């Protein structure tokens, strides 16, 4: 008996008698003797709760988290403040411990959360149709590729901007190799997708085009223009967005985007070293029946009361099997709950105010860093929450010097010898001034050493 099981010796005896066998061993008779493991698994011995806690805490203490240093790391996940009410709601047993709402009569809470979440994502993106979440950002983009592949089977060429997150580009390649599409990458020019190369790359056989806004380097892309080039060729236009910017950025639904995806972590989810978070997936009406994943829909019960169910399930793997629009089953419902609660918490005015704050502070930070000798903007495009600067000394060494002073200055991009710096509402002007100070001193020392 472990601390999570409850069968006593007396229970076992009674249960075996009811089953009609002599021992638990007999229940495994179907497993051929030569396939049974003849030794205990080679694992550390089980430990009481307090010992496991101590071990996990010790491991946690050997990580430098956003609690321990002043961090400007971003690149797809961001250290936004997660309000306390999210911890409270996501740890409620009623949300935490059920599974997918297969029995809607006892899952109205979860189903209504999905419905509200879909509404919030639809509002953010200005697209009419959203599912109840997919795994995370990069695989969401790849899933949009599968949607395009099924929608236009004859078109096997995908065009993707080099401004899309490198993990998403790589994930798309992995998926596309499987379902059979060629991926062509279009380079950036002054920090944004080169419009001439973009137009040249898109041809009649192009099934989908992929762009990210703001792009990986923080630059705001002219999505409407890029989308127009894709639409003209009859391609599915896929755009990945940072949801936190959609309070102030023109939404994808107004830019000619067919499918909008993105990483939901900025919306009330912890960093968690990369997951779990959620991916969002929204589209135009035309793609409703091609969507991957769960969708909650409104209906009525036998007495006419408003209620919610999983709907349009004939798209899904458990019904359609090899003809399904996706293989996804378990998605990220709890993380999507955090997302919709966060959006309700921010509210209609808050999401605009937050976007405006990030816009102003990010500009301030770029100016402050570029005032340092030898630091140059990697591009001069508008930025909202993140920007890249090039350094006069090797970026990785500079990052180490700053980290030694308790400041993580951002993500090192060794190929460009650039630093990608992210701003959240948790990084004040004083924090940014400290970053500039520490970075300036690190550069001086690094240049002296060199």
């Amino acid at each position, binding site marked *: *008996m472990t601390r999570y099981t409850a*069968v006593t010796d007396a229970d076992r005896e009674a249960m075996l008698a009811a*089953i009609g066998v002599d021992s638990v061993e007999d229940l495994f*008779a179907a*497993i051929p003797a030569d*396939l*049974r493991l003849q030794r205990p*698994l080679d694992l550390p011995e089980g430990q009481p709760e307090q010992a496991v806690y101590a071990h*996990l*805490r010790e491991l946690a203490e*050997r*990580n*430098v988290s*956003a*609690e321990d240093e002043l961090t400007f790391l971003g690149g797809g*996940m961001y250290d936004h403040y997660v*309000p306390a*009410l999210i911890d409270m709601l996501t*740890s409620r047993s*009623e*949300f*935490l*411990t059920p599974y*997918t709402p297969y029995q809607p009569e*006892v*899952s109205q*809470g979860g189903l*209504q959360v999905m*419905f*509200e979440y879909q509404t*919030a994502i639809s509002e953010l993106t200005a697209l009419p149709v959203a599912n109840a979440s997919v795994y*995370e950002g990069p695989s969401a983009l790849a899933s949009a590729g599968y949607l395009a592949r099924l929608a236009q089977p004859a078109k096997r060429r995908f065009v993707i901007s080099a401004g899309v*997150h490198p*993990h998403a580009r*790589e*994930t798309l390649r992995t998926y596309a190799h*499987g379902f059979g599409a060629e991926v062509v990458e279009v380079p950036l020019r002054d920090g944004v997708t080169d419009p001439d190369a973009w137009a040249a790359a898109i041809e009649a056989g192009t099934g989908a085009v992929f762009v990210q806004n703001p792009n990986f380097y923080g630059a705001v892309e*002219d999505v409407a223009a890029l989308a127009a080039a894709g639409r003209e060729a009859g391609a599915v236009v896929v755009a990945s967005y940072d949801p936190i910017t959609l309070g102030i950025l023109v939404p994808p639904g107004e830019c000619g985007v067919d499918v909008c995806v993105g990483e939901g972590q900025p919306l009330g989810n912890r960093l968690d*070293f990369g997951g*779990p978070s959620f991916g969002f997936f929204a589209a135009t009406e035309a793609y409703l029946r091609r969507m991957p994943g769960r969708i909650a829909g409104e*209906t*009525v*019960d036998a007495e006419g009361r408003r209620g919610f169910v999983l709907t*349009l399930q004939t798209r899904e793997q458990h019904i359609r099997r*090899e003809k399904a629009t996706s293989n996804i*089953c*378990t998605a*990220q*419902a709890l993380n999507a709950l955090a997302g919709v609660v966060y959006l309700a*918490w*921010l*509210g209609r*005015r*808050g999401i605009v105010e937050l976007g405006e704050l990030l*816009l102003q502070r990010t500009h301030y930070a770029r100016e402050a860093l570029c005032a340092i000798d030898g630091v140059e903007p990697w591009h001069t495009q*508008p930025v909202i929450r993140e920007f890249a600067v090039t350094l006069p000394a090797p970026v990785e060494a500079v990052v*180490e010097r700053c980290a030694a002073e308790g400041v993580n200055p951002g993500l090192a991009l060794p190929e460009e010898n650039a630093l990608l710096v992210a701003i959240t*509402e948790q990084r*004040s002007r004083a924090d*940014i001034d400290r970053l500039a100070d520490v970075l300036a001193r690190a550069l001086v020392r690094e240049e002296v050493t060199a």
Partner: protein
Amino acid sequence: MSVSTETPLQREEIRTIFEKGAPGRRAFVCPELDVPKVDGLLPDRFRRAQPPRLPEVSEPEIVRHYVRLSKRNFDLDSGFYPLGSCTMKHNPRLHERVTALPGHARLHPFQSPKRAQGALELMWNLERALAEISGLPHVSLQPSAGSHGELAGVLLARAYHEDRGQTRTKVLTPDTAHGTNPATVTMAGLEVVKVGTNPDGGVDLDDLRAKATEDVACLMLTNPNTLGVFDPNIREIADIVHGVGAVLYYDGANLNAIMGITRPGDMGFDIVHFNLHKSFTQPHGGGGPGSGPIAVSDRINPYLMNPRIVKREDGTFDLDEHGYEKSIGRLRGFQGNYGCFVRAYAYIRSLGAAGLRDASETAVLNANYLLARLGEVAEHLPLAFGRLCMHEFVLSGAPMKRELGIRTLDLAKRLLDHGHHPPTVYFPLLVDEALLIEPTETETKEALDAFADAVKAILEEAREDPEIARNAPYSTPVRRLDEAGAAKRPVIRQSLD
């Protein structure tokens, strides 16, 4: 005058968060602008004209709204949840506590490996533990859920054959397989070939031999399968599949039956995925998050996803982004669902080898005991295959439907009134009126007895009056819902116009 027995909570008028609040209300207070305001930073053509119509609500309104919604959910912490194939075992709260420690929860995924040594060591240790449990030496924790692990597995099998210059287009899946198996095969650009089931619930060997041809890339198999049957011919199955040069993929959805007892690697499998949210007890979250690591044999190892965790000679850990040139690449961003790794690792450290074996033995004991108790109504709900089961079993409701006039769906709905979550229903597809029941090891004998008694009571009640079950449930926040209407005229977001 009649007295209503309905509680306001259960039957309150439902409004969404978008229909609550009032203009001007807020929960978020934005930090003040502490830098000089500069106009025109975002050109007008990029600027949103109208803000998204998010709710305008105060913090107390948000809390009350979602707490009340939560009470319209059934959950594992409140009651028995024998949802077959989903392994709804208890979620230890220790796991939530340790996952929330800032060193884990606020660790940025782009943190330098030098400053994430605790996380990488945890992932390394978890990889080693999963390798030991599966009997397959190489592990990638990256996939986000079981179906994502399946996609990894089929792409790996494909890459293995492609590297040998072979184009193999077919994947064999038994007709008992989870829907994710065939859906995954199509997504990976291959073709599904179904293999039949023999009268004992295992793979039909003759059918397998006939379909195992030189153009087969792999066989996807769950063992024990979705009927709760361990296929005793597994050696022979492996020999047939390997005989034509194909790869064996083990769907680990049912690993909870065999931890420490037998290992997929020892059975001859090349690739296995784990559902950390099942066997290694993650809270299911109402439909995720999950986590679907895979373990593979030496011959599949060169193709595993990047990045890989490496242990250096000095005992430190690193992330190797591009170490394997033949890698199929990435399947998602960053390193996977780390929060799930922390929980699974805590679970393995809590139980150890003996505890994991005990968990599987108890899961199988509990399932067989519940099967025996339900044997008291076998005339209406017979076991579909065999006499004993592994960690779950399938009953057929066909005689019940014929003789008592209630369907499996009706039984499921009436169970809700008895305070139990129903089993998985109408799966697997090859059993008429199927009920797939998985009690897990964390239930007490009393809970199993109560469930069996409820089933018996419902059947007795149906003998008297089948209408009662046909119209169930009665005690839930809503009655049966019009699913056909929902699909016909989809309303999938709140209208704000």
